[in-house]
């Protein structure tokens, strides 16, 4: 039954499903499959078995998911389904939040696509202001999403952009778990011995009563305290920092990095993106030129980049390409858009503050071959801002379309957009509107790029420069 030929084929298939197959081996696999229906059947059976095992393992451990995590394919699959799923469910599921029992909080403001996963497993996407929420997970699904909730003790929390926050209670303490994105919390005085606990990548904080902001990336969290005192513990080595008003601390997963409360007096008004560090959403890829020249060196350089950012320059530059997503704006039907999201404050060495004279310098590429009949030759840029001394300030986007004509330069472009061209998104009862409002002095949290059609937008890098330079 199990011939030598099958043994070779199975060996390659094992490498394929274990993600260790090389280009040469894949070429060998293709040769074996080409014209051989029996080998093709074996291929399908093998891959189907692999996926079936993943599904079974995941299904049998739904209640243990937090312990064991989701399989890679499952994560990819869930991620893939994410945008559409939410967009569709927005229409399909009706009937309020469904979590009116044991209300823990209520929604006091929101915009964009927001998803609520209650503890009983139900998922709700038609949230409205005033809806009560029990314990569960609230997520912002798009760059333009934000939601403000008021906890039943009067504390207020805002998540913004692509963010995920779980909230629950443990022995009288309120527990917030921010796995990604941005959180701003205004905590009322908590009972003695029962501080609010905030968990985020690499850190755990105890709060008795204060206003603070948390920006979480997968590798680190920045806590910025505006009032009161927050005790932040770095999880991997247990070291603790007391962060007082007007101070911040960055807790990374790497215990070699400095973990120290820093006075919030220094800030930067200039900034340059660095991929993959700042990628929040999008398809990141590298030109293969370097690998083609010397495939043996590339892994070594990649390893070096973990320890030295200068080694990054030896690698082919990263490019961030848009991913499709259902985009929801108040007063409009959900539409298919393509977007990337770039984090700023979570990973930047200093908070980035917006100067009135600043402008964005954006380098990238669009694929003119993918242009449709109209609305092709532009993208929209937006950013999220925070007040410099606490709290979510809002979202800003370019009022006008950004027209490009990159034909002359291999579809590449370099454009500059002054900060003054960004307008604030004001939420309304029925639809949002754009109002002229200066963002000067605010802290920049993230920025995003959206296209209405898939025009293959790729961002090479973004800089914030001052106008005079």
């Amino acid at each position, binding site marked *: 039954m199990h011939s030598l030929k099958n043994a070779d084929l199975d060996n390659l298939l094992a490498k394929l499903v274990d993600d260790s197959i090389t280009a040469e081996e894949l070429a060998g696999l293709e040769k074996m*499959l080409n014209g051989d229906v029996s080998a093709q059947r074996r291929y*399908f059976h093998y891959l189907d*078995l692999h996926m079936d*095992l993943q599904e079974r*393992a995941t299904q049998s*451990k739904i209640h243990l998911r937090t312990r064991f995590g989701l*399989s890679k394919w499952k994560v990819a*699959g869930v991620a893939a389904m994410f945008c559409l*799923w939410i967009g569709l469910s927005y229409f399909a599921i009706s009937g309020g939040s469904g979590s009116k029992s044991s209300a823990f909080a209520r929604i006091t403001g929101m915009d964009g696509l927001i998803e609520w996963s209650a503890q009983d497993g139900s998922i709700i996407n038609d949230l409205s202001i005033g809806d009560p929420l029990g314990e569960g997970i609230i997520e912002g699904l798009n760059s333009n999403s934000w939601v403000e909730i008021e906890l039943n003790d009067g504390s207020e929390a805002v998540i913004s952009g692509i963010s995920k926050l779980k909230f629950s209670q443990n022995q009288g303490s309120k527990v917030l778990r921010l796995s990604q994105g941005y959180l701003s919390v205004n905590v009322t005085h908590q009972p003695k011995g029962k501080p609010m606990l905030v968990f985020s990548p690499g850190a755990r904080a105890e709060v008795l009563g204060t206003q603070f902001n948390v920006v979480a990336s997968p590798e680190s969290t920045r806590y910025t305290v505006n009032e009161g005192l927050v005790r932040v513990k770095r999880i991997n080595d247990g070291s603790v920092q007391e962060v007082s008003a007007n101070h911040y601390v960055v807790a990374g997963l790497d215990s070699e990095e400095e973990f120290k409360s820093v006075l919030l007096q220094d800030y930067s008004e200039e900034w340059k993106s660095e991929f993959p560090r700042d990628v929040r959403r999008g398809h990141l890829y590298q030109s293969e030129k370097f690998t083609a020249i010397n495939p043996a060196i590339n892994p070594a350089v990649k390893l070096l980049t973990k320890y030295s950012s200068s080694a990054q320059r030896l690698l082919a530059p990263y490019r961030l390409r848009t991913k499709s997503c*259902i985009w929801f704006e108040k007063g409009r039907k959900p539409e298919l858009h393509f977007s990337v999201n770039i984090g700023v404050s979570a990973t930047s060495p200093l908070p980035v503050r917006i100067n009135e004279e600043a402008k964005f310098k954006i380098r990238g590429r669009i694929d003119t071959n993918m242009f449709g009949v109209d609305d092709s030759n532009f993208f929209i840029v937006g950013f999220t801002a925070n007040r410099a001394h606490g709290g979510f300030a809002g979202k800003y986007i370019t009022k006008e379309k950004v027209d490009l004509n990159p034909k002359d330069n291999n579809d590449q472009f370099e454009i500059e957009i002054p900060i003054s061209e960004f307008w604030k998104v004001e939420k309304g009862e029925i639809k949002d509107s754009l109002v002229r409002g200066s963002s000067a002095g605010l802290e920049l949290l993230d920025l995003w790029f959206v296209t209405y059609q898939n025009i293959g937008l790729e961002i090479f890098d973004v800089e914030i420069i001052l106008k005079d330079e």
Partner: protein
Amino acid sequence: MDQTAEFVRLWTQYHRDVERYVYSMIPRSADAAEVVQVVSVKLWEKWENYDNERPFIPWAMRFAWLEILKWRQRLAREKLVFSDELLQQMHSTHEELDPVMEMRRKILGKCLEKLNQEDRELVRLRYGGRHGAIKEEAERTGKKMHLLYYALERIRVQLLNCIELNMQRGGMADA
């Protein structure tokens, strides 16, 4: 039934079949996930044209196939992509195989029960464990990691053989 709710119902029921198909044609999970996402969006966009007298799966698979071809065109120069010719062949083979796949999945449950405790634990670690679980197991037991992966390869073959034997016994062999 409301049209949107009907779409959600059908997609909920069958999206795993589409995922499996796309993954088998694009065996890189990140790329496959992207394509599945685009397929789901396309299906929704074209939902008005769906004839509900006809089965959903073949309709959805047609879109999946077109998106696979588009993806193939985009990455034509990449080495880690099957050729157009092979993709066409695989597409035909997959259509033939479709009727027996569900039966094979049902038999897998029985075959898993036949594995010994150690093998079952290894499968659990590989598929249900967190990222790096196999490496941790190698460190914990002092076994070399590649030997654990060889063991997994052996277990998969054992499961495939078990499924095929059961299919033959039931007169349903396809290969």
